[in-house]
Every structure is written in C-alpha cells, then in structure tokens.
C-alpha cells in the first residue's frame, strides 16, 4: 500500500516546526511503527534525516509511543497504543497526518518526541506506598474485596503514556493523576499516605503546568487502557476530604 505522510518536523524545543510530506510503501501487516521504520530506513539510505519518534516495548505496555495520528492520540482504534495499531486499518492511497502530543507541560524534544517527565515528577511527589523492611508479608494475609481489587487493578493499568493530556482540549492531566492516586488509595497498603498523597500529587500536577479539567471526556475515549472518568470524580472526592479534614 502506498501512503502519503504529513509529519511534524521540529529541530528542538524552541525551533519553529512545520509539516513535511513523505511517501512510503507499507504492508498492511505492518504495525504503525514498523511503517515509520520503513520510512526512516529509506530516508537514511538517501542520506536524509530520519523522523524522530518515541518507542520502546512495542507491545502496548510501556507507554512510550506517543503519536497523534489524524488528530487522535494513538490513532483511530479504541483501546490501542500506536505500536499496536496495524496498517490494515488504513487504505491504499491514504494521507496520514502525524503530530506530537500537544500540551505546554509536554515540550517537544524533537519532531514527534515530547518530554513527559512532568508525569514522573507527579509520581515522585506521592505515587508510592510505605512498606516495612524485613520479611515480606504473606500477600494473602490482607483480605481485599474482589470489586475493590478489580477497581484498583483497572486504575493500575494506566501506562502513563500521556494520551489523556494529548487528547484533552485543556491539556489537563487529571485522568493520569487520578488513576495513579486511586490504584494506590483503593488498596490497604496505600491507605497510610492516603490524604497526603492526593494533596501532593494534585499540587504537583498544577505546578507542572497542566490545564484544568472540564469533564469533556476525550481523555477516556483516547486512553489506550480505557481508564474510566470515575477516577477523576473519585480523586475530586478524596481531594476535598483531604483538604477539609487535614490538620
């Protein structure tokens, strides 16, 4: 299949970027990133600069790939990362627009690569649990209701790719932050820091320059792990409770 690609090229964070047109011959069995590999190999053979894009596991679990494909973070398929998106979902002769995540809190490093370390700093501010040293406790010694464990697990499936921020018209990170807060807060091990965690992580999120959530819901639609909006409501509840009850 022959494709026309419109890809955002930008030398560095401060340089002005613009779209470049490329032609590539791909196979429908390829993944989207393999198609970009083919493009880059062709560019290198012709002594041209390849397109910079982030990728790592290519299994849909690391959260490194971050492409906005035809205006949609991770492309048109529901619950799928860009690396798990296959070319069979496109047609011969298609023009595909590829852009980086757009949000001021995610500055562009080069081309399609953005700096998402703001997420790491949100996690560092409170996304952890305290554990006693010494012998590990028997996991089964702490009873956890199945529904609660399930909810915590669902929140924990967030891979921190940043598609929620990229999808949000406000550049808000509330889906990510709430998923990270809730997956720890729902479990007994996470209760120790419960109040402090939600306050610290929300403060850090604001400090990092993310926008304000207005419940549009685009984040949930584009999330490759389909993290639910209920997480944001739960974070709000926890935040109010922490603020109102803390000494």
């Amino acid at each position, binding site marked *: 299949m022959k494709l026309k690609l*419109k890809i955002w090229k930008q030398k560095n964070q401060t340089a002005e970027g613009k*779209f470049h047109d490329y032609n590539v011959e791909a196979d429908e069995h390829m993944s989207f990133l393999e198609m970009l590999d083919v493009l880059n190999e062709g560019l290198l053979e012709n002594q041209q600069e390849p397109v910079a894009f982030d990728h790592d596991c290519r299994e849909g679990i690391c959260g490194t790939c971050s492409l*906005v*494909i*035809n*205006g*949609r973070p991770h492309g048109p398929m529901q619950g799928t990362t860009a690396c798990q998106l296959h070319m069979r979902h496109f047609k011969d002769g298609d023009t595909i*627009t*590829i*852009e980086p995540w*757009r*949000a*001021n*809190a995610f500055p562009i490093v080069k081309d399609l690569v953005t700096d998402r370390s703001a997420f790491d700093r949100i996690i560092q501010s409170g996304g952890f649990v305290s554990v006693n040293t010494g012998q590990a406790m028997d996991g089964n010694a702490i009873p956890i209701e199945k529904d609660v464990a399930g909810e915590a697990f669902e929140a924990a499936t967030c891979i921190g790719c940043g598609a929620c921020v990229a*999808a*949000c*018209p*406000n*550049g*808000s990170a*509330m889906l990510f932050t709430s998923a990270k807060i809730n997956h720890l807060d729902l479990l007994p091990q996470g209760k120790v820091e419960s109040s402090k965690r939600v306050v610290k992580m*929300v*403060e850090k*999120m*604001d400090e990092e*320059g*993310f*926008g*304000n*959530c*207005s*419940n*549009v*819901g*685009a984040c949930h*639609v*584009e999330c490759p792990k389909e993290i639910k*909006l*209920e997480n*944001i*409501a*739960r*974070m*709000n*509840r*926890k*935040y*109010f409770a922490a*603020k*109102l009850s*803390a000494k």
Partner: protein
Amino acid sequence: MKWLTSLLTSSIGRKLIMALTGLFLCSFLVIHLIGNLQLLVDDGGVAFNDYAYFMTHFLPIKIVSYGLYAGIILHSIMGIALWLQNRKKKGVGYKGGKAQGSWASKNMGLLGTLILAFIFIHMGDFWFKMKFTDTLKMVSSEALGHDVKDLYKRVSIAFENPLIVIAYVIGQLVLAFHLWHGFASGFVTLGINNKKYTPIIETIGRVFAIVVPVGFVIIPILHYLGISF
C-alpha cells in the same frame, strides 16, 4: 485559612467553584421559570405583577437575589479565566482532526460568554427598567391593596417585537447546549459519579437541558402569537 485558599485556587478547587455556582444557577432557572409561566395566564398580568412585587420586596428573596448576582459574577469570571488559561496550557492544536467529546463540552467558554451577553440584554430590558427607572406604569393591585409596577406591560411590549423573540429563542438554544454538558459535569466535579447514580444524573441533566429552555422560550413565542391560558 491557608488550606481554604489553597483548596479554592487549585485546579480541582476552581472546578468546585464552577460546579457549585453552576448548580446553584440551575436551581435559580427552575424558580425563574415557574414564576415566569404566570406570564401565560390570561389575567392581564395581575398575578405576574403581584409576583414581581413580592420578588423585589420580600427580604429573604432579596438576600438570595444578591447571592444570585454573586453566583453569576463568580461563575462568569472564573469560567472566562479558566477558558483563557486552558487555551494557553493546551498551546498548539492538531491539524489532523478534532478532539473527541461533545461539541457542547468543548465550547462551554463560548456558550457561557453568549449566555452572559444574553443576561445583560435580558436584565437591561426588564430588571434594570423595573428597579432603577420610572419608565414602568403603576397599576393597582387588588390582592396587595396598593399600586405595583406594571412589569407585565413591559414584557408584552418587548415580546411584540419579532427580533426580540428571535433573540430569546437563540439565547435559550445556547443555554440548552450549556446545560447539556454543565448539569451532569457539575456532579462529576463534586465527586458524585458512580455506576448507580451517573446514568440517572446524566438523564436528569439532558431532560433539564431541554425542558427548562423550552419552558422559557414558549413564553415569548406564545406572547408574540397572542396565546394565553
């Protein structure tokens, strides 16, 4: 008090202000609509004028009305501030396609600004003329035993003008879209969102977003057509 200022200036706190003021304004819409439906009563405006007198002279109502003005101002200022800030935080938009989400949810700032403009026109036409000018004639009220301002007449004159009727239809259409997202969104912000209640709240929100603006809009339309009950 540091905890309170840090709560109200955080991203979640500002959402909270939007939600609380927004839902308060929703409750006002219901009261306002019920009162205004008296304009459709075929009594030459007696019931409506008595009601207007009561609403502007009964102390508890007056106190609530100042809360209402404050609510409108706070909701507007905070909304516009958030709108401008969010545009900046997003930075560049996408060329390849539009963001997901309902049109209403993505245009709350625009819709809200239009509603604010509508409120200015609406209040300038009735509220301002009733409270701060002598342009309204006095009519005697049998029930109250003294003269009251004839606001009904002012409303009748306004709604004889087809351009004003059209402006009200547009104003209510904008309000419908704003409520379509705003009502249920307010509850999510307050943290009221779970499998059991969310579908109920969303349904009430959608019904509210249709019934309330339709209720308001039939008043100028029926007045224009000369229909009363």
